[in-house]
């Protein structure tokens, strides 16, 4: 059992006693209880929303700041001092419940309208999208939702520059709102809203897609049919509930064939915007509608499902999504994606299996309850065993660049007095992060879940490290340069507030202890801290400028250090 900070573990009895085999009983105890509690499934389509029982779990362990910091590094866009206290007070499970009950303050769309970005002059621009996204990621109190929503956006992709519409900023915002609104909902509902979202229709080109034309020989666009199955729900190969490949005669078994793609493509015909009025962005927020004359009237056969001839577009959509949602792959597929995005690049099969079981049934018979899934991801013993994670030389994940920026911004209360949030597009790989929220060029996103840096010890060990797809000679340096600039100058009136930390700047050890917790969940070793301390101590603390430079140096070196960049 890990001992750090105050080192005290207070074990109390819990209604769900942990199994004897568990090396980290408290976490699983909470997790198991959470399973029983998972009835708070909320807004699911397939089953009536169960009534949420009152929380019965009291924190059974005094959570240390280090433990809270690591948990928050997995579950938020960055920990603030207040967040750490909140987790310590409420417990992991209690904090999750509190976050599940935190409503969104405002949709991206509504904020952008309120801020006046819907003026006609913006019809052909992207203006307003970046400020709204950064504002919520950094300033939102619904941090778990922001983080889970970004995890979803990492693999259910609409990139603003790939939209061929006008009002791109609103189209992209409406899509992101779907992800954020459904982050704690049911995956089936999410799939429905993603599918009818105009941004997705544009990005994957089925908006305006029409049925086969026997005269010209034209056939339906297959783009959405393929990527919906490959990237958002099922993957290429049939997998067991623990994510491992099913094999047949030594070979993996394909989930679907080209015929399935062509068959499913027939469902995604006839979908279009519900208005021709482009004077306002409104039609990009409303779900697409189906034009019967453009919808395929023949049978649609895919994944051993047959939709009879003359089924309407709306009914076909329901039947198709039902079939995909019922496919056994979806539970381990989605579970692994979320574990990789939040906790670790290389979850054990057992971990995937435990989360997938919750996806399949939240304990109340509801499939696809994302609240229960998120709870299972974050409270699993493999996620919460701090001692094992920090001792391992292969665990954890590379923090994705966006989360590094937001983590710094949240730790130091960076905000924009005029609400301009002028951070902008951070996707440049030579001057910025090589990643920017909602700006992936491709539906294959910034990195692939199975990516392994070739010719590396990671590959030799048979592990994956998706975020390394963005790691190259230019990007490792560009990131440090960009953060150096942001730390000191911010962007426009987006600036950090170092008042509190500057008070500690004269005492380099105290300064670094504080930053180590705030940014790195205390994962920087004493040796690294000593290295950075030497740098800080080389700057005189006798002047305000010196104190500022000590703060800048300490923060930048922490943000640049490998022990920070790889979240254990």
């Amino acid at each position, binding site marked *: 059992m890990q001992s750090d900070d105050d080192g005290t573990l207070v074990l109390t009895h819990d209604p769900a006693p942990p199994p004897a085999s568990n090396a980290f009983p408290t976490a699983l105890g909470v997790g198991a209880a959470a399973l029983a509690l998972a009835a708070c499934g909320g807004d699911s389509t397939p089953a009536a929303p169960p009534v949420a029982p009152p929380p019965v779990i009291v924190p059974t362990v005094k959570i240390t700041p280090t433990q809270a910091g690591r948990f928050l590094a997995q579950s938020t866009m960055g920990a603030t001092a207040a967040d750490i206290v909140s987790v310590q007070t409420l417990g992991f499970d209690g904090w999750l419940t509190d976050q599940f009950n935190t409503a969104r303050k405002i949709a991206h769309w509504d904020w952008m309208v309120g801020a006046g970005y819907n003026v006609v002059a913006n019809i052909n621009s992207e203006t307003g999208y970046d400020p709204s996204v950064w504002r919520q990621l950094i300033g939102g109190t619904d941090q778990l939702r922001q983080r889970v929503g970004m995890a979803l956006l990492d693999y259910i992709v609409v990139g603003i520059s790939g939209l061929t519409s006008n009002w791109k900023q609103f189209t992209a915002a409406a899509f992101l709102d779907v992800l954020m609104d459904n982050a704690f909902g049911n995956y089936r509902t999410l799939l429905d809203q993603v599918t009818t979202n105009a941004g997705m229709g544009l990005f994957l080109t089925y908006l305006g897609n029409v049925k086969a034309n026997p005269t010209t020989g034209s056939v339906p666009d297959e783009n959405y049919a393929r990527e919906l199955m490959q990237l958002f729900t099922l993957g290429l190969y049939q997998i067991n509930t623990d994510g491992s490949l099913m094999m047949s005669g030594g070979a993996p078994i394909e989930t679907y064939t080209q015929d399935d793609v062509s068959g499913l493509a027939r469902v995604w015909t006839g979908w279009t915007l519900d208005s021709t009025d482009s004077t306002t962005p409104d039609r990009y927020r409303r779900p697409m509608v189906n034009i019967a004359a453009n919808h395929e009237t023949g049978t649609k056969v895919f994944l051993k499902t047959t939709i009879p001839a003359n089924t309407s577009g709306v009914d076909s959509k329901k039947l198709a999504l039902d079939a995909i949602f019922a496919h056994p792959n979806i539970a381990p597929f989605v579970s692994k994606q979320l574990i990789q995005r939040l906790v670790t690049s290389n979850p054990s099969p057992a971990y995937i299996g435990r989360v997938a079981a919750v996806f399949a049934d939240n304990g109340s018979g509801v499939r696809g309850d994302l609240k229960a899934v998120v709870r299972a991801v974050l409270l699993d013993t493999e996620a919460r065993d701090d001692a094992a994670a920090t001792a*391992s030389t292969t665990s954890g994940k590379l923090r994705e660049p966006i989360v590094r920026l937001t983590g710094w911004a949240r730790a130091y209360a960076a905000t924009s007095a005029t609400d301009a949030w002028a951070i902008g597009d951070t996707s440049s790989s030579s001057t910025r992060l090589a990643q920017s929220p909602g700006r992936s060029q491709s539906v294959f996103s910034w990195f692939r879940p199975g990516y392994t840096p070739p010719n590396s*010890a990671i590959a030799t060990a048979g592990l994956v490290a998706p975020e390394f797809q963005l790691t190259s000679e230019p990007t490792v340096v560009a990131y440090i340069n960009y953060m150096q600039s942001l730390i000191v100058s911010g962007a426009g009136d987006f600036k950090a507030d170092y008042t509190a930390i500057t008070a500690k700047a004269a005492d380099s050890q105290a300064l670094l202890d504080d930053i180590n917790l705030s940014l790195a969940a205390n994962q920087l070793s004493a040796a690294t801290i000593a290295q950075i301390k030497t740098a800080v101590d080389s700057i005189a603390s006798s002047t305000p400028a010196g104190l500022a430079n000590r703060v800048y140096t300490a923060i930048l070196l922490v943000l640049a250090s490998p022990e920070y*960049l790889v979240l254990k």
Partner: protein
Amino acid sequence: MTLDQSRRAFLKRSAALGIAGAATPFVLNLAGIGEAAAATATDYKALVCIFLFGGNDYANTLTPYDTTSYNAYQSLRPNIAYARTDLSATALNPATPLAGGLQYALAPALAPLLATFDAGKLAVMLNVGTLVQPTTKAQYLAKSVKLPPKLFSHNDQQSFWQASSPEGASSGWGGRMGDLFQSGNGTATLTCINASGNAVFLTGKTAIQYSITSTGPIALNSNSATLFGSSAANTALRTLIAAPRTEILENELTRVTKRSLDTFTQVTTALAAGPTITTAFPTGNSLADQLKIVARMISVGQELGAKRQVFFVSLGGFDTHENLVATHPPLLAKVAGAMKAFYDATVELGVADRVTAFTASDFGRTLVNNSTGSDHGWGSMHFVLGGAVKGKKFYGTPPAIANNGPDDVGQGRLVPTTGVDQYAATLASWFGVSDANLSTVLPYIGNYGPASRNLGFV
């Protein structure tokens, strides 16, 4: 480069591998080096892969032009076909006409490449694509031969093109050529150079891919001697981010960072002292930006002690499921403008016959249109460009223009009649890969008869 320099570089590299290969027996690394040392080169050559991400639409890139063929083309994709009159200016006149009166025209936007074709510096490869072994339509339908896994899937076919293996491949054929030649280069790191981010194509079993931006390497902290006024802080930063680590993710991060810092001065200095290229490259064209830095790196190849280099550049946006008529021609215009300028730059630098560029893409697309575009296909047409190219000629077999005809598996998805391995082997042979080493670079090349491993276009 003198022998002594080569030897020193080789020894230095052996030591570095010994440290980096903690998870691999040292003997294996030596074996890798030994194999690599087998390929030697005295002159300079560069291969440049131009990857068109998304799956380029072959039929609107190289369009059937004789009346019979054009009419077949037009009837299969009436919504997105070029008008025949728009193709007359770019109709190709190969040195030896194709059989049966078959003619092709370049897409109008490819007009800048016409003169290069006529000058014999551009060759056209017909219906090339991913295969494990020679495959007929009947064999495909009967599933009686091994096929590349996950045909029609972007990421997997990109990977198979580059690596002969679907997504998750650990090395590509550009990188495997790098394995053979890096020991002859003064700086092994600068053997496989990516101006477009990260691609498995350029990763070898031991060779790494070095990534460079269109403006060159990126300086840390403006290459300043101090950080926030402190030289100690600057030193601490540089030490912290580049030192070996025991945690393997951390170590990979510092390994890349160290490479970035170590090569910065060397490459920047060489580029600064290199010749000024006066050839005008198109602006607002990211492919041209990438090819310009490739030309600049080639221009200083000698200074950097390079004998063999493989480059990778790319352009995205070719997944033209819709609005193909509006979106595809501008992409081709970028490709043509960038390739033409690059070729001209190699002429200016006096290295045209030492540099061969070739196109590649995820797959071809359907010949039959959907409402306004085309969908994922398989075989496609590609271009090979350079002073050593035997151009003004078509290579390979012209596919039947049909829907579910003899050469397609439906909708004009072509069964490739030439495998990527044959295309690659031809380039590799020119590059200097021996026949004995071809199977190291291209694991499936043994499935093709010796006489069909070199298509003769370069």
